[in-house]
């Protein structure tokens, strides 16, 4: 039987403590996510080398309960070449621009188009083609 006491005590956690843990974990997981996809820095050890730090120190930085300074976050961002923290405004700018660039320019119900994405659940007669807008010349058909 699950602990009722745990559920009850969780409700009493102050908003400050909740937010403190959440922010720390968000940063820790964000760095781990970047490491998974980074072309050269794929481990905490490699990140430590890039920063000139001991691996144990980076491990503590990423423990999720480290009082990370803006300076240490910035150092990691520079080493990784990626933003670890994005403000709401920055995120909106970045991703809205991405959606604007992605345009649906052709819907062909009968024959496959080049660069088409097929949807197996559909009848196979419909193809929607997405293409990145070429800002200089516009979409190439």
């Amino acid at each position: 039987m699950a602990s009722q006491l745990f559920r009850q005590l969780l409700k009493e956690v102050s908003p400050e403590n909740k937010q403190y843990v959440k922010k720390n974990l968000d940063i820790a997981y964000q760095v781990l996510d970047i490491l998974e996809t980074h072309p050269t820095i794929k481990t905490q050890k490699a990140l430590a080398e890039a920063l000139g730090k001991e691996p144990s120190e980076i491990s503590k930085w990423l423990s999720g309960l480290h009082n990370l300074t803006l300076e240490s976050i910035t150092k990691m961002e520079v080493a990784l070449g990626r933003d670890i923290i994005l403000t709401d405004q920055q995120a909106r700018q970045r991703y809205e621009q991405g959606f604007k660039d992605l345009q649906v320019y052709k819907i062909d119900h009968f024959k496959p188009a080049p660069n088409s994405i097929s949807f197996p659940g559909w009848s196979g007669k419909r193809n929607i083609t997405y293409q990145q807008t070429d800002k200089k010349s516009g979409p190439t058909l």
Partner: protein
Amino acid sequence: MHNFAIIEEFARLRTVTYYTLRREDGIVSETDDFLNRMKRAPEYTDQFQQVLQWIEFIGDMEKGAHPHLFRSAGNCVALPPNATHLAEPIDLRLYCHLVNKHIVILYNGGIKTTRTAQECPNVSRHYYNAQSWTKQLLAIGIETSGRTITNIEELYLKF
């Protein structure tokens, strides 16, 4: 002294199921015993609340119980994780066994008052129990399916 211990679900969250142990003759589980004692220690309210929140967030995060989110404690692990340069050192310890990223067994813990857990009058008992239980669980071999332990309900554990 030997006792039967029942392994029971403590909390089932989005990604992780937490289990705990309860002595067959015990009214509360090991982890509920920890919660009951810690909620009566007002000077550690912040640390205690952060550990509680920690358990919930880890359990709900997509990546689940990643080892770096725990601190090493002999052959098992503990919460909260290691951290330096904090305004105040974290003295609270909750010992646990990380089975995999979807299953964690929470034991007991307390406020560590000495440099090592072994010499601390508050947590040494919990530390040694955690070592012993983890060793026994590893020897038995825990079988899992998704977020559920499938092969152990009642254990004969040494207390």
